[in-house]
């Protein structure tokens, strides 16, 4: 007897097999925030020695930094003045909040709600099309300047600077300052715009305290990898040492990182970046910011400065001490003292899957760049937990060519358009958006985006793609456990 099979049923059967075996990103890991007991969405944990207030007063500095990190900045007339005249958001924690304060961008994008929240005037600002309610928090950059008429790109004139999303124009506390937003629509029509999302800050103090020799030795250990990988370091142009913060490892220290972000993202001048920042075009053309948009806080420059008279009236000397530094120092101290995320050993997928995924991650070559652990940090003069500690950041802090697929045509320091710092993976299990521009929320998509022409990672991705769906799933589970 010859049996006939219904074609439709056959197809359905195949689909079911495919669906059952297909690997999928488990999504944001549920459970303890950062894998830490006691952390909440608004209270990230400090390093253990800071929790123990060692040295005395350090805990107060951490908590003060956490408070300032959440301050809502205004243009003038409030407690925290200096916002703008151009900015991306008015609060550090607005964009660094997933899964808790100090993290990356949240699910609900505050940049998309600035008009409804009264942060910017809807009569003078509009929400750019690439800023969406459930999309990534972003900054925008134009890789190239436009030509003189603004109708074409001038690819011989690299730009790459941040084009702040909003202006203070129309706010009640901004006086007569009148500025237009950058030409985002034009930039989009010319394919002359790229995006960056906030980097998470957990464990940043440990990263800062890694001696260069540790990074160089790791480069040795990963040499001869046979995978087509050969990274380099982005070096500070002044002293030649290894820079390590930012998507292209362009910043040397957390103090620098903090000062630049306050200036660029929020428009607040400070002791590291003492002027209000015009847009790149305004700067290079010598026009700068119009006079009626300068010194809007009416307090002079820098808008954020050391408090020679402590702002705290507490009877606790530690609180008084913590109130003396400027905001950028307080932010940097907060970042230095933030504890790194803790890996889950069981979630998602169970301990066996995570353990196997970790081994697969190493075997296919991911760990050549995403070095699981660097050991160890220098002795620390800040707090004991920062010293002589292993750093399980899953990064070599080198810059690598990532090819045409991830290229953003922005050069920072020695990093060219397609070179990026190996993104640390600790905490990736509870992140929502991936890659430098937040283009995906799917880890599998992010992995595969590592392969493109010119990328050092293409062979590793080939190795990954040769694995069974089960092994790929284990890698995804492992990553979401971090």
């Amino acid at each position: 007897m010859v049996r006939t099979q219904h074609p439709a049923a056959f197809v359905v059967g195949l689909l079911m097999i495919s669906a059952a075996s297909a690997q999928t990103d488990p999504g944001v890991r549920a459970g303890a925030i950062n894998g830490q007991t006691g952390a909440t969405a608004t209270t990230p944990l400090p390093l253990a020695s800071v929790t123990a207030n060692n040295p005395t007063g350090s805990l107060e500095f951490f908590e003060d930094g956490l408070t300032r990190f959440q301050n809502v900045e205004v243009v003038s007339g409030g407690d925290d003045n200096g916002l703008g005249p151009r900015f991306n958001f008015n609060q550090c924690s607005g964009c660094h909040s997933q899964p808790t304060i100090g993290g990356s961008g949240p699910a609900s994008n505050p940049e998309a709600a600035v008009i409804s929240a009264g942060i910017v005037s809807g009569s003078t600002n509009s929400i750019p099309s690439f800023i969406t309610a459930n999309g990534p928090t972003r900054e925008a950059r134009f890789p190239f300047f436009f030509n003189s008429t603004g109708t074409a790109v001038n690819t011989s004139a690299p730009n790459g600077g941040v084009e702040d999303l909003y202006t203070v124009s129309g706010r009640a506390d901004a006086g007569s300052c009148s500025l237009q937003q950058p030409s985002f629509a034009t930039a989009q029509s010319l394919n002359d715009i790229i995006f960056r999302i906030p980097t998470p800050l957990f464990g940043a103090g440990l990263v800062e305290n890694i001696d260069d020799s540790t990074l160089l030795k790791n480069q040795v250990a990963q040499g001869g990898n046979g995978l087509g990988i050969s990274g380099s370091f982005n070096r500070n142009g002044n002293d030649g040492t290894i820079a390590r913060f930012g998507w292209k490892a362009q910043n040397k220290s957390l103090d620098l990182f903090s000062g630049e972000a306050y200036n660029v993202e929020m428009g607040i001048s400070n002791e590291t970046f003492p002027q209000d920042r015009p847009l790149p075009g305004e700067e290079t053309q010598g026009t700068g910011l119009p006079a009626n948009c300068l010194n809007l806080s009416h307090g002079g420059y820098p808008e954020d400065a050391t408090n020679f008279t402590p702002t705290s009236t507490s009877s606790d000397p530690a609180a008084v001490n913590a109130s003396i530094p400027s905001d950028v120092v307080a932010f940097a101290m907060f970042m230095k003292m933030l504890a790194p995320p803790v890996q889950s050993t069981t979630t998602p997928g169970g301990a066996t899957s995570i353990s196997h995924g970790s081994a697969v991650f190493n075997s296919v070559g991911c760990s050549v760049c995403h070095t699981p652990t660097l050991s160890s940090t220098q002795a620390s003069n800040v707090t004991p937990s920062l010293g002589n500690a292993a750093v399980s950041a899953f990064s070599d802090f080198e810059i690598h060519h990532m090819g045409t697929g991830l290229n953003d045509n922005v050069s920072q320091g020695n990093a060219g358009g397609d070179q990026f710092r190996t993104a640390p993976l600790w905490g990736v299990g509870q992140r929502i958006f991936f890659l430098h521009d937040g283009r995906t929320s799917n880890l599998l998509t992010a992995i595969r985006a590592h392969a493109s022409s010119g990328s050092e990672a293409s062979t590793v991705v080939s190795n990954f793609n040769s694995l069974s769906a089960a092994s790929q799933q284990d890698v995804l589970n492992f990553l979401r456990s971090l």
Partner: protein
Amino acid sequence: MRARHFRDSRSRAALGVALAGLSLGCCVESWSAAQNGSGAAPNPPAKVPAGVILVKGAWSSDSDSTTPVPEAGTLTSRDYASPYFHLSYPLAAGWAQKFTGPPPSDRGYYVLAQIQSADAADGRIRGSLLIAAQDMFFTPIAASNALELVSYAGSHLRADYRVERPPAEVSVAGRSFVRLDYVSPVTGLHWAVLATQIRCHTVQFTFTSIDPSVIEHLVAGMGDMTLPIEAGVSSGKGGGEAPLCVKDYASGGNVLNRVDPILTDRRFNSIPVRVVIDTSGKVKNIHFISSFPEQARTIGDALQQWRFKPYMLNGKAVEVETGILFGAPPNRALISGRQEPQLVPARKHDPT
């Protein structure tokens, strides 16, 4: 001094297709001319072209358009061919390059081709082949030839791998290669590395697959390769149609006239350079393996003024090529246990 223009080696290989029709220098210049009212010109680049790396970091370049360089091999549906190495490798049916490799590194490492099997219906691939080269003048590994380099790799495998076949000499297409096989017990992925030395480069063929028979099939296909006579695990020092390669030739009494470049940038990168010296002792070709454009211009202008003692072989002057490292010293941690590459310290401005 006449202006010299160093061509971007990658632009003719990896990015040649993408940039076809977008000769950037041409269009920008023409656009400026049009703006100045000096005549009709093509339209300016209205948009940033997608998928093109326009803003490059350190990259490779060279001083003329005719001398072959390692990264400028060609890949067709039939084979990979390298004029520089005088080799060709026939591709197995159904195997192709999906993505070109990155530019050469500042340690003289080249990804020459990345070849893989066609994707299966489930997205999995059967295996991949990485063809790479390490310039032995600049290798960070304590090895002076292909045999030593692969042996070093075999003895420094990470704990994730187990050696299946320790490094040993094999014959491929009539030339000596060193072969190392290893496996990842966790994934079942197998690797086979076959390497030989040509023009003082270790040229490596690294096969990867879950299925060892796939690797063996591909290794067997290497028998159809064409290779230069010099190829061998410890020979491979040029000659024949290629210049002889001589380590540290640009040193001591071999250099009759030397003009040190003055680098004014503060990038702290290593700049490995290969030069070909003709029979009269003049620099015939300069290959900047990894440098920023302004560095290439400065170093190139200086090197063109160098004069060498002609290299004599059997009483006759012959072309030689050698390596010179400019810029920052190499990673000190990388060179423990081996002789440092010849270093020409660049003079720099006071750091303050």
